């Protein structure tokens, strides 16, 4: 029998749950038993509640075990884990785990399957077919393919990616840039991190396609400093791609050049806003720019720049490989394709669930996610990060779709869903939203800079029962001003969590049922 391959993820979540110790214990146990086996450090499948999830290759497929503790290793080996035999931790064939089987994995197709730093693995699983297609059809047809796919910005704004690309392609300049926004600061999100750690070449390929399509020769990935593992994996992958001639001059014989590098943020949430990110990349304070000019016209160093969310760029290879029409056929309404939804917080089955748009919030939280981890009733979920609304259970019929969420004064953002059980105090969460905005405001515009501090103070008064009705009116008015008067989404969207908490959970603000509670 050939040497068995055992997969132990090298992913931040898996590591935080002890994957390194599991890999080490496993290697020692195998050596002590004189058993031939190769341990591969794959990325995660995104089934995070099962991490560390160990997989063993068998003739029938990959059999999974999890969550594995180092102390479980002897018993697992005794039970015949290397032949995929049963054990209380055995989850059967990993592809048959319902959570994974129910997904439509387009962007995340390779995550957890391949060795992230093996170019051969990447190519064996469809990698670089998208770039080959882009080289074959040429730049303008590539831009059109992305436009036809209906792909919209996965950072939250939902702006059509193809339009950004068209604008940059049509703007002539001596230098153009591709910038990847990997400043994934929203609590409840980890999709960017999963791609970088599990399938880094996918991002490299997507950025290369973008560069060739719009005539940009240089790319930057702006990754948050809280993701040191992602930065390290990406750095290695870029070096491998460069050595293989997949970055640099004459990419795949196209006659075109493209190269890229990683840049690290420094803990400023506002740098997830595209213009603040560009300022930061230029080595300045991450202060938001007024638009226009759009980054597509005057972006990084005042040059035409495609700035896209990491998930948008990582979705480009599959769009090119299978065609814009293939991708567009998934989804609902104007939300085309798939979305990696991230189930987080107080949830039983936390992880990444990539699926076509249209699935309901309730299905995600209850059926897929299994309800709360604490076993208590769900009280609310925050969708779309710190700037996203809190949705109560009676809105769980809302389909996951840009427009359906917007109609409920909510946003899907980057696809994070944080679940809270009935012990949460929504006034406290509203106060946190204002406090976070005050902490992270870049200070350029007054509604955000001053409004957030005043908002926190006003909430303190409300929570202390001080002139409650009058202060609630002030808070509502303040939120209105911030929403309409802020320069970017930080100040402009902080009212979403605050007002949704107040609208749906007035009792947490110590209120009588009749409040001056204008929900917009």
């Amino acid at each position, binding site marked *: 029998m050939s040497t068995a391959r055992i997969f132990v993820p090298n992913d931040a979540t898996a590591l935080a749950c002890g994957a390194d110790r599991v890999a080490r214990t496993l290697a020692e146990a195998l050596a002590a038993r004189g058993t031939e086996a190769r341990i591969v450090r794959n990325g995660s499948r995104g089934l995070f509640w099962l991490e560390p999830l160990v997989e063993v290759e068998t003739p029938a497929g990959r059999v999974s075990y999890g969550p594995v503790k180092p102390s479980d290793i002897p018993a697992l080996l005794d039970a015949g884990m290397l032949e995929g035999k049963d054990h209380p931790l055995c989850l059967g064939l990993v592809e048959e785990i319902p959570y994974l089987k129910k997904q439509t994995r387009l962007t995340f197709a390779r995550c957890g399957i391949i060795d992230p730093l093996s170019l051969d693995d990447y190519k064996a699983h469809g990698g670089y077919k998208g770039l080959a297609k882009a080289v074959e059809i040429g730049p303008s047809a590539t831009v059109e393919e992305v436009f036809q796919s209906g792909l919209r910005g996965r950072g939250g704004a939902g702006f059509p990616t193809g339009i950004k690309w068209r604008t940059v392609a049509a703007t002539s300049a001596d230098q153009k840039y591709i910038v990847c926004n990997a400043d994934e600061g929203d609590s409840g999100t*980890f999709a960017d991190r999963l791609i970088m750690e599990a399938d880094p070449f996918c991002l490299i390929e997507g950025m290369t396609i973008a560069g060739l399509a719009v005539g940009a020769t240089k790319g930057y990935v702006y990754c948050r400093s809280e993701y*040191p593992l992602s930065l390290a994996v990406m750095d290695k992958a870029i070096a491998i791609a460069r050595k293989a001639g997949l970055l640099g001059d004459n990419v795949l014989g196209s006659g075109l050049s493209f190269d890229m590098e990683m840049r*690290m943020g420094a803990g400023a949430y506002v740098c997830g806003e595209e213009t603040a990110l560009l300022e930061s990349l230029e080595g300045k304070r991450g202060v938001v720019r007024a638009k226009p000019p759009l980054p597509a016209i005057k972006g990084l160093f005042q040059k035409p720049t495609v700035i896209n969310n990491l998930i948008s760029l990582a979705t480009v290879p599959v769009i090119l490989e299978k065609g814009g029409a293939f991708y567009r056929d998934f989804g609902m309404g104007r939300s085309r394709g798939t979305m990696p939804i991230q189930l987080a917080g107080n949830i039983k089955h936390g992880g990444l669930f990539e699926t076509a748009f249209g699935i309901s919030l309730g299905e995600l939280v209850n059926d897929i996610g299994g309800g709360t981890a604490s076993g208590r009733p769900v009280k609310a979920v925050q969708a779309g990060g710190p700037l996203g609304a809190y949705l109560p259970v009676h809105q769980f019929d809302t389909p996951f779709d840009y427009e359906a969420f917007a109609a409920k004064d909510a946003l899907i953002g980057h696809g994070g869903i944080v679940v809270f059980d009935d012990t949460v105090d929504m006034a406290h969460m509203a106060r946190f939203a204002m406090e976070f905005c005050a902490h992270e405001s870049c200070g350029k515009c007054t509604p955000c800079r001053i409004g957030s501090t005043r908002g926190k103070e006003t909430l303190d008064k409300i929570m202390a029962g001080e002139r409650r009705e009058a202060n609630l009116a002030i808070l509502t008015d303040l939120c209105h001003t911030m929403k309409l008067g802020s320069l970017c989404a930080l100040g402009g969207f902080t009212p979403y969590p605050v007002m949704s908490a107040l609208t749906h959970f007035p009792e947490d603000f110590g209120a009588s049922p009749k409040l001056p509670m204008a929900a917009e």
Partner: protein
Amino acid sequence: MHQAGYEPWSAERASQIIETHRDMAGAAMPILHAIQEAFGFVPEPVVPMIAESLNLSRAEVHGVVTFYHDFRREPPGRHVIKLCAAEACQSMGSDALSDYAQERLGLEMGETSADGRVTLEPIFCLGLCACAPAAMIDGRLVGRLDRETIDELVAEANR
């Protein structure tokens, strides 16, 4: 005594770091990160050095250093514990664990112990939101925190 794992301040070494990175586009951030990696913080004397090298004013460099939460202006403790304080961790009880850690260490959030042994800080999201509450100790990630794991982190920091 300088901090474990970091180099003592040296203007010569700082010049060398600046020189290595100065030709990068938008060099200020990579330089500041490299300085902090070497010395554990961004010492005040480096600000005019960076300004001169990049043809910026001292005020501009000072502005960058002070804008970003990551850049330290004082040396950290020999161990740094960062507890996530964002929403997903809050939904799993991070507030109470943070109180417990502060009590165990006798430190408020953001403080370094008087003996320079440990720094306790909040962090806003490690991307470990599906195994919350989460923390980082000296760069190592820890998920599914409870009081017992906090005790282990405190013991590790006191070693």
